[in-house]
């Protein structure tokens, strides 16, 4: 009997599989303490880069905040605490700041860390800004640039002076890293975004990244040279679960993870009931809104379907037909808060409630529409001022099912008003394209009416959210409602250049009320951060802000340094200098983790091209085997038929 093609395929398949199994790239690791205490964190985000200049995702901020010190850190009530600088003073005219850098501080590679490193980092960002060069994605650079710094100097290794163009306290809340000059000075500003900043990273923060596997995890080893308190964790691992929320929760339940950020609302309630688990719901920087196309000009062949959307009275009336409490309960399972103004309650200092909150009252909404000049016709259709029935298109991103549910509710509430809603989910890319005005792209049509989407703000400053309604955002495609209001623009400038945080409060409050009244957005719900952690391994979990916030993914990395070992009864926390844990970076760890792959013949990391080629050849081989087998089988069948 001829050996069948399948048998051959099977044999070959197993042989290939065996070969492949032997070639699995081994992960080699730096030497470390015998039984290291590892803090393992799970998050849904996966970083695109660990170069701090490229940071934009929350997890990317978390990574650089572990690696590097901020010039001035954040305490649990967001107050300034020592960071790279030990102490500081402000000159009497408020324009000059003098920072003292601690003596004997070292980078994780043992090089001295001095005021020159801080001077170099800040000057690098400021000079690039002046020259019109963007460092990486540009977010981090702007913390330095927006603080109004015009010059920086390092008169001696322990002294740093910063001069600002106007009196401001923003130099104390710059969420940007101080980098080691000896590592970064070779990088040209224009191309620094292309620098991968490979692990192991040299920094002065409490933990240093030693291994990053894209899409999988990043591992940090303790920085033995860290000047501050040493947390109980010898190692910090952050694992990424993009599009895999369920998997992350299962891993937490199984004890593979000690801490997770943002399970779903139902999962959160489930985990909360488990013993030895703390679950915290904290206010977040973001919100979900129902937005209007408020673009004030006509666009031939595009634009909103009715001019009514440009009318604040029309938008205001619709606000009475939205039951935000029902959305919060039914769509968001009670997590978060009912949305009101543009600055969410997360920003405790700046958030204000509207003076005249709208209630849910369909009849009132009808009245207001009548008064505003939008009558019903005989068929029960609401007409705009041009006499055209109001049939509005409502778009939402199709990447989150809660948007679709919101849209369903809103369409149901608007129906009794005589306004017909046609809702449709779109790819986020398609939605951004639709929401573009001709000022940004002459071909753009801004062809939409209503939409549901959300924004996420910055950790310490509401500016990113406030910028959405600037007139200039239309031309820069930074807005989705294409709103413009001169009074708002001048209030923004006023708060942005205010000397102190307190002085910003009044204009920011006015801006919130203005947007609430004008209603280019109806903010439906404020997001929440849902964080859950096990308490049996680590103790002394501090929250930021104290008592209401979350331990991690906040400003700075202070809370990592405060963790204690839950199993060690007396839990002495050795302060500062001489820690016995000769685990990490000084000796053997100085050899990079990823660059010395273990006994594998084809290390995928170091010789990407060869491994790829080999893999491709194998893929081709498998397909060839399949095709040949198929063809042979087919021809044999044909032959059999011929013989019959």
């Amino acid at each position, binding site marked *: 009997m001829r050996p069948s093609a399948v048998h051959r395929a099977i044999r070959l398949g197993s042989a290939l599989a065996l070969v492949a199994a032997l070639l699995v790239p081994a992960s080699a690791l730096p030497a470390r303490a015998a039984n290291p205490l590892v803090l393992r964190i799970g998050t849904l985000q996966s970083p695109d880069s660990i170069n701090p200049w490229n940071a934009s995702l929350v997890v990317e901020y978390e990574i650089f905040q572990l690696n590097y010190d901020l010039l001035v850190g954040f305490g649990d009530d967001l107050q300034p605490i020592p960071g790279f600088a030990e102490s500081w003073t402000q000159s009497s005219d408020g324009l000059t700041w003098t920072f003292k850098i601690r003596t004997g501080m070292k980078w994780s590679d043992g090089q001295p860390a001095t005021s020159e490193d801080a001077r170099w980092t800040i000057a690098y960002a400021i000079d690039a800004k002046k020259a019109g060069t963007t460092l990486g994605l540009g977010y981090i650079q702007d913390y330095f640039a927006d603080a109004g710094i015009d010059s920086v100097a390092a008169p001696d290794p322990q002294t740093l002076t910063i001069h600002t163009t106007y009196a401001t306290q923003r130099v104390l809340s710059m969420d940007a890293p101080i980098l080691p000059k000896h590592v970064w000075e070779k990088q040209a500003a224009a191309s620094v975004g292309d620098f991968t900043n490979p692990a192991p990273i040299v920094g002065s923060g409490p933990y240093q990244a030693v291994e990053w596997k894209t899409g999988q995890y990043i591992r940090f080893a303790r920085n033995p040279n860290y000047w501050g308190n040493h947390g109980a964790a010898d190692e910090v691992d952050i694992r990424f679960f993009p599009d895999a929320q369920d998997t992350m929760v299962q891993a937490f339940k199984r004890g593979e993870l000690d801490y997770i950020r943002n399970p779903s609302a139902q999962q959160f309630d489930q985990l909360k009931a488990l013993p030895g688990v703390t679950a915290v719901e904290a206010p977040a920087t973001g919100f979900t809104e129902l937005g209007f196309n408020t673009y004030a000009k006509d666009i031939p062949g595009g634009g909103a379907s009715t001019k009514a959307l440009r009318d604040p009275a029309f938008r205001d009336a619709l606000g009475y037909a939205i039951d935000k409490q029902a959305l919060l309960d039914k769509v968001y399972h009670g997590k978060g808060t009912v949305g009101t103004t543009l600055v969410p309650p997360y920003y405790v200092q700046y958030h204000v409630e509207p003076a005249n909150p709208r209630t849910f009252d369909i009849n009132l909404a009808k009245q207001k529409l009548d008064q505003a000049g939008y009558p019903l016709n005989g068929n029960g259709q609401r007409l705009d001022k041009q006499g055209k029935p109001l049939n509005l298109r409502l778009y939402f991103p199709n990447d989150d099912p809660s948007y679709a549910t919101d849209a369903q509710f809103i369409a149901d509430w608007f129906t009794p008003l005589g306004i017909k809603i046609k809702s449709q989910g779109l790819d986020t890319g398609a939605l951004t394209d639709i929401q573009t005005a001709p000022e940004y792209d002459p071909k753009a049509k801004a062809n939409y009416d209503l939409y549901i989407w959300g924004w996420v703000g910055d950790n310490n400053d509401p500016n990113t959210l406030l910028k959405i309604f600037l007139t200039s955002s239309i031309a820069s495609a930074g807005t989705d409602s294409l709103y413009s209001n001169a009074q708002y623009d001048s209030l923004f400038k006023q708060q942005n250049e205010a000397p102190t945080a307190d002085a910003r409060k009044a204009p920011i409050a006015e801006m919130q009320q203005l947007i609430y009244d004008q209603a280019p957005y109806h903010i439906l719900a404020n997001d929440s951060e849902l964080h859950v952690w096990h308490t049996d391994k680590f103790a002394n979990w501090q929250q930021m802000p104290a008592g209401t916030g979350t331990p991690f993914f906040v400003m700075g990395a202070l809370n990592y340094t405060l963790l204690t070992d839950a199993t060690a009864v007396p839990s002495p926390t050795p302060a500062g200098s001489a820690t016995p844990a000769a685990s990490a970076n000084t000796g053997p760890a100085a050899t990079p983790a990823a660059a010395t792959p273990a006994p594998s013949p084809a290390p*995928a990391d170091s010789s*990407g091209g060869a491994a790829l080629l080999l893999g491709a050849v194998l893929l081709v081989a498998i397909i060839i085997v399949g095709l040949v087998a198929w063809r*042979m089988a087919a021809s044999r069948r044909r032959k059999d038929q011929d013989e019959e």
Partner: protein
Amino acid sequence: MGGRYLARKMLQAIITIAFIVLLNFLLFRLMPGSPDRVLARNLPLDVRQVLLERWGLDRPVFPDQFVAYVGATLQGDLGDSFKFQGVSVVDVLAGRIWPTLLLFGLGEVLAIIIGLGLGAYSGWKRGGPVDYVGNGISLILYSMPYFVIGMILLMVLSGGLGWFPTSGMLEMGATYSSFVDQLLDFLAHLALPLTTVAIGLIGQYSILMRASIIETLGEDYVTTARAKGLTEGYILRRHALPNAMLPAVTLVAINLGYVIAGAITVELVFGWPGLGTLTVEALNSRDYPVLQGVFLLLSISVVLANFAADLLYGFLDPRVRS
């Protein structure tokens, strides 16, 4: 083998590849949403302009971008990833191709052995207990999407009973005393995704094999064999099985082309760092170079394999050449 045959096949392959390279360029640029706006929605305009310049997207799509793309591709340069700044596409792909090959290679092998075996036995003992139970289960499995199977396995065996790790390929940051330790850890992580892939395929294979065996057992030559007094086992092994295998082989061969489609869901559930998860990540951020790389790798592999199969087949079966 005739030179003309070879030349014709080679020309076909070259034309196909040229078409793929063209399509590859167009396909992802036709998607709505430009990478600079998808990657960071609230970046200032000047920053986005810098990004577009760095990625070469500020120039006109045709001819500038197209010429640059074709030139680089011909030289084997797939460019740098947009998303993973400063990392070349080749390096990105290299890290991800092995896990996918392993998972689906082994999954296919497992499914072929178990699925075909189960199907053959069910068909042979038609109406028996194995047939009833096996066929029922196969139908259920066949109709279940990968991610449902995956989620069930994950919740029961990993989250619930805690027998297997939930995700990843190796334990994060583990140090291994020996290669065997590492292999065991790898196998523990592989177990659930592999089972998912295998289960998803077993139903399909076993149903087909069962039908095929039943059909074959009704053929005249089987009746003849029975009349000759051959034992049932002998008839199955020597007469029925080899013939019943043919449609199954076809199905297996076709399935090989669907590796990526299946990979996406299984890999997402188990956080398996393969081409499937990479494709989703790249798609979400409109990472054109990585998407082009994945697409090019897969499609050119299929074309080359087809070409090689044509040559091999022409060698094996002389009739084809004429």
